[in-house]
Structure formats: structure tokens, C-alpha cells
């Protein structure tokens, strides 16, 4: 029974830690963040397993984590408050103002520990060559940076390969 409780605690504790450490998972993983993920995973394992090395214990813990994850996603879907606490909201990193042109959201960039280079990386990933071709950049809830090209052609930030090229030709 204790093993299952440890698994529940471990799941929610790690979810909390990952939420606090910051939102840069998935494609944005740097080599340093790999260290973080594997080190935390390895350390959590020793405490979760304890001295119970049986198959029963492992199976029950896996089921407990599956259940905890289901409960988490269910609660996230049911409650906007929980969804915000668990995932946060998307954050605008760069926007284009009608008067001043493109501007960085300095506060968001500093507090989310994101650099211009990270946004430029995403811009290149979307087929844009420079930041001048970016209309706005958004840090999504899963840590990806969406980039919207400045000609306004792409609405989802994905179909941008044509947009900037056309703009470059026009210029």
C-alpha cells in the first residue's frame, strides 16, 4: 500500500517541480535539460521503489501513476482554474505594434528565461530568416514557441514556408 502512496506523491511532486522549473520541454530540450530530466527521474526512482522490488509493487505503482495522470488530465479538462495552475496560459513574447513596430515583451522574456535566440530558432524552424519577418511570437503552454509571420498569411504559425518567401520576393 505504501508503494502506491509513494507513487501518487512522486507523480504530483514531480509535476509540481517540472511546473516550477519552467516550461521548456519537448523540442526545446537543451542538453542541460536532458541532465535535469534523467537525474530527477533516477533520483525519484530510488525513493519510489524503496526496498520493494516485487513485480506486484511495480505493477501497482504503474497503475497508480496512470490513475494519477488520468485524474490530472480529467481535472484539467473540467476546471479552468486547475488547467491554468497546471499548464499556465500562452504568453506573448513578441508582438507588432501599429505605432512602434515589433516589440519584445521584456518582462515575460526575462521571467520565463527565454532569449531572443530561442525565438529566432523557432522562426527559422518555421522558415523565417530574420526576426523582421516575425509578426508575433507566443510561448505556448507546452513550451513550444509559435511564430506568426509578419505578412499575416499564416494563422497557425505552421504553414509559413510560403508566406515569408513571398514577402521576401515582394521586398
Amino acid at each position, binding site marked *: 500500500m505504501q508503494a502506491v502512496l509513494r507513487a501518487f506523491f512522486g507523480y504530483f511532486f514531480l509535476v509540481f517541480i517540472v511546473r516550477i522549473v519552467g516550461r521548456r520541454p519537448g523540442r526545446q530540450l537543451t542538453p542541460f535539460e536532458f541532465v535535469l530530466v534523467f537525474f530527477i527521474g533516477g533520483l525519484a526512482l530510488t525513493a519510489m521503489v524503496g526496498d520493494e522490488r516485487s513485480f506486484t509493487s511495480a505493477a501497482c505503482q504503474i497503475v497508480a501513476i496512470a490513475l494519477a495522470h488520468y485524474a490530472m488530465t480529467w481535472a484539467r479538462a473540467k476546471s479552468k482554474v486547475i488547467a*491554468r495552475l497546471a499548464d*499556465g*496560459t500562452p504568453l506573448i513574447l513578441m*508582438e507588432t505594434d501599429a505605432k512602434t513596430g515589433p516589440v519584445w515583451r521584456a518582462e*515575460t522574456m526575462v521571467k520565463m528565461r527565454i532569449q531572443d535566440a530561442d525565438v529566432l530558432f523557432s522562426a527559422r524552424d518555421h522558415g523565417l530568416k530574420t526576426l523582421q519577418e516575425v509578426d508575433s511570437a507566443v510561448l505556448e503552454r507546452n513550451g513550444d514557441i509559435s511564430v506568426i509571420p509578419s505578412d499575416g498569411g499564416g494563422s497557425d504559425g505552421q504553414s509559413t514556408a510560403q508566406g515569408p518567401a513571398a514577402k521576401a520576393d515582394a521586398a
Partner: protein
Amino acid sequence: MTQAVAKKPVGDSVAKVNEEVAVGEDLGFQRSWWRFERIVWACFVMIIALDLAGAFGRGPLAHARISSADHSLIVRYERIQRTGTPSMMSIRLDAGAVRDGEATLFVSDKLVSALGAQRIIPQPATTRVGNGGLTYTFPVTNPPSTVRIELEPPGPGRFPFEISAGPSASVTADVWVVP
């Protein structure tokens, strides 16, 4: 027969914050979250500092030393221990605790059951059970001499224990075991 498919119109469930892109950003919430994050980071630093100091065991704050009123029995132990983690309790017996070349040491049951005494060094000459604990006898040639008990607590909690080496040499203390 085909079953009906439930459908729902696509609405603007995400707030359209700036003019072009529906982002759903909430800077007010985010600022509160950043404040909360700062508090959590401060707590993390505090946890590490307390751990280095030994507040959760295995550090300077955890080491304790108690002696009996006549100072013939001195016990060094860790007042904060960790579940499943070995620690050594050392019991120093002075001449006052030795009679006829033999020291009699009583340890309460809690030391064995709750604090998980694994072994006692050196091996006692005799062991008797009763009176809520174990009574060991050790042949002593040239006091002071030290008896060590290896502990490995199986679970968390607060556990009082008692050790005595005769009627005038007795100590009681608490051990906190963290999960």
C-alpha cells in the same frame, strides 16, 4: 444503421487578446504565478540549507550526545534519522557503570523495534529479554569502553528510547525518523 454523431458549433472559447491572434494570454494570472514561483524558489533554497545543516538528518544538527547524571554512561546518536538509512549509536561506559569486570546494559524495546537495531558491537556475553527491553552483559577489562549499535529505522515517527547501565546510570531521549 449509422449512429448520430454529437456535434457542437466552433465558438471563441479562447479570448482574443491582441487584434490578430487568439492567444488567451492572462498576464495578471502569470504575474501571480511568478510571485508564487519566487516564494517556492526561496523555500527550495531554505530546504537545501536546512538539509546541509542536518535538520533532516545526516548533518551537524542531527548529532546528539547525552550523558547520565553520574557521567558513567555517555550516548552519542543521531536525533534525526532517515527511514531505511543506517546510523551508528555509540554508548560509552565508564568505570562507574562497570561492576566486577562486567557491564550490564539495558536498551528499551523501541531501539530494536522502531529504530531497527541491526547489530551490536561487540557481541554481548549474555542477552536477557524482559522489563520492556533487552539486557546485555559485556565483560569489561579496562574502562572506559564503547558499545556500538547499528540502527536502521524501518519507518518514520518520533521514538523515545531508554538506555541504562545500572540504577544510577540511565538516559532517555527521543529520535525523530523522517520518511
